[in-house]
């Protein structure tokens, strides 16, 4: 199934006719109370921030997985975000408000790979908000579980 998804992505890339499309495509848009907003970020822009890996289980998968990406607070700091809440919006228009304090209380990341493989749009990609669930008992709660937004495409700082 996953291999099919990859095939689909590859097909999409070939069809767009750009060899490095996956590096240059905008994968995250940040709007709201930031310094020079709205900002659009591609993979290369995200890779300028320090990479962080979290090993944790999730409520929708079995076992423990290694998620790599950038810390949400690093990302927001780099954009000089000033709000109390961040609205995370997925490709299917799923939207959830996350308090800014979460990112400073916990090492919440915007993961782009799981177990070393890039997250894709026909899976949970391209970006997945991952909490260090196994490290904090407080995070093993349904009220945190709905903040794990996959297929993330936009952040609105409010």
């Amino acid at each position: 199934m996953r291999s099919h998804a990859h095939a689909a992505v590859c097909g999409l890339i070939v069809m767009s006719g750009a060899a490095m499309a996956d590096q240059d495509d905008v994968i995250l848009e940040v709007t709201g109370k930031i310094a020079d907003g709205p900002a659009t970020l591609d993979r290369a822009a995200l890779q300028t921030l320090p990479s962080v890996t979290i090993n944790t289980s999730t409520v929708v998968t079995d076992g423990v997985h290694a998620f790599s990406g950038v810390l949400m607070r690093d990302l927001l700091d780099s954009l000089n975000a000033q709000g109390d809440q961040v609205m995370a919006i997925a490709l299917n228009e799923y939207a959830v408000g996350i308090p800014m304090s979460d990112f400073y209380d916990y090492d919440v990341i915007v993961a782009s790979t799981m177990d070393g493989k890039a997250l894709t749009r026909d899976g949970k990609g391209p970006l997945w908000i991952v909490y260090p669930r196994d490290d904090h008992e407080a995070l093993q709660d349904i009220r945190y579980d709905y903040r794990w937004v996959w297929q993330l495409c936009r952040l609105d700082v409010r």
Partner: protein
Amino acid sequence: MRRRRSLWLILPLAAVLVFAVLLSFSLVRMFAVQNAMRVDAEKNMLWVFHQSDVAALRLTKTVALVELGEAAQDDLALWFDILSGRISLLNDGPQRRFVEKIGFGDDLDRLTDALVTIAPMIDGFTPEDGPRLRSALAPFTAVLGRAANASMIAEWDEFGGRLEVYRKQLHQNILSLIGIMVAGGILTVTLVLALRQSRVRNHMLRRERDFSGLLISSSGEGILAVDRAARCSLWNDAMAGMVGKTAEQVEGRRLSDVAGFFDIPPVRDGMAGALAGESSRLTLQPLFSGGRGTPLHVDLRFFPMRNDGVILGAILFMHDASDRHAAQQKDAEDRDRLEELVSERTRDLDSALRRERSAADLYHDFAAMVSHQFRTPLAVADSALQRLIRRGPRADAREMAERAGRARTAIAGLTRLVDSTLDAARLDAGQIGAHREECDLNEIMQIACKHQRDAAPDRRIETRQAPPGQATVFCDPALAEQILENLLSNADKYAVPETTLFVTLHGDGESLFCDVHNTANPIPSKDRARLFERNHRGSNSVGVAGTGIGLFMARTLARMQDGDVILLSDDDGVTFRMTLPRGREPQT
């Protein structure tokens, strides 16, 4: 009473047991509920199916819009990826298991396979593919709609069941809590009662302790207590007064260091005995303490101090019995004085009795004396008077005078003898003493010899006088004469017939000696020792007249005048010596 006490013990124990069991049970139940809540609250499959259904519908709608030319190819690819992500999610572990549980496993596999056939149509979409693609997507909304329905029912069933389990568990917990409350109530009541009882007991104990303390401190008896190491732990005022040390000085110290009195063997042994569990007592032990010249006399009582059979120390009661000791001393003194008085009285009585006896003896002897001593002058007088009668008219005046004079001399001697004997008897009875004066022993000797010659004319008597002026002695002349007459009469009786008696007077610086010697067999040694005893008659006296009183009288009379009569050792006869002092002072 005992049943009540055991109830008081059993009830709280049972309550504690019930309390612990119910609490453990409740805790286990609570943990179970907590765990169940945490795990089960994470599932929300209805939402997953709904989102998947929405993705399928949006994809179908996008297909129609693309056919109409109102949407782009990218929108189609986006919604296809979103639907693929949803199906992928449903195929992940937890979601897949739930799908199979509600019986949609095969349907999901079919949808997954359908995605593979749909993918090429999306990539190379042309408006002609529209109807085929929509019909290929039709099963998605149908399956996902039914799955959502089934999911809702399954989740509500599970939720209802879980609530029922929670309710049961909570119900059990409520019952447990009621049990815990009851047990806690019992425990609380027991505790309150125990506390009240304890307070009452403490109060009583404190009162008793205060009372004991008051008794100890106000006791006239000295009281001290020691611990097992014989260190002083209690020392009351009376003890301080007796020993002369205050409680502060002695508490915590060993008794042997406190005062020497506690180190004397009987006290030390008593204390050691009490520490070994033996009670004992000592009476009237002298207690010297600093600053007192005379000792107190104290009675001591030692007791072990026990608690539950274990010896904790010893206690010593010390009672000042000096008064009793003084009374005993006085009693003893009184008794001694009484005994002394009695013995003195007894001595007086004995002496009186002895005097009475000796008086009686003398009176008794007096008869013997009469027969023995008085016969001689009576015989002289009788013989002179018989001759005179026989001569009758033939006797001339000179002869009459001479014979009558001889009779009178004998009678005068007899009179003297009677006087002297009476005096001696009185003296012997302790009534009078000798009438001692300075007199010439030569004269006395001549008188005695003359009387002896008158009594026994056949016996020759040779005298040897002391030099003139050298014969003065201090004595009673009558007694001295009587002594010599006794010795002469004795010598005459026991002398060999036809032999001569020798009377020799001589002396030294202090005494005069008058030796009366007669020729005879020596006196056997067995008789010598008893020779001077009253009424003793020697073994050679058989057939010789006598009472055995002569030598006794001679010695008694001589000693009365600080003189003596002794038997001298002699080879050719028997010699008695009379000794009389020259001067007033007795010889020493």
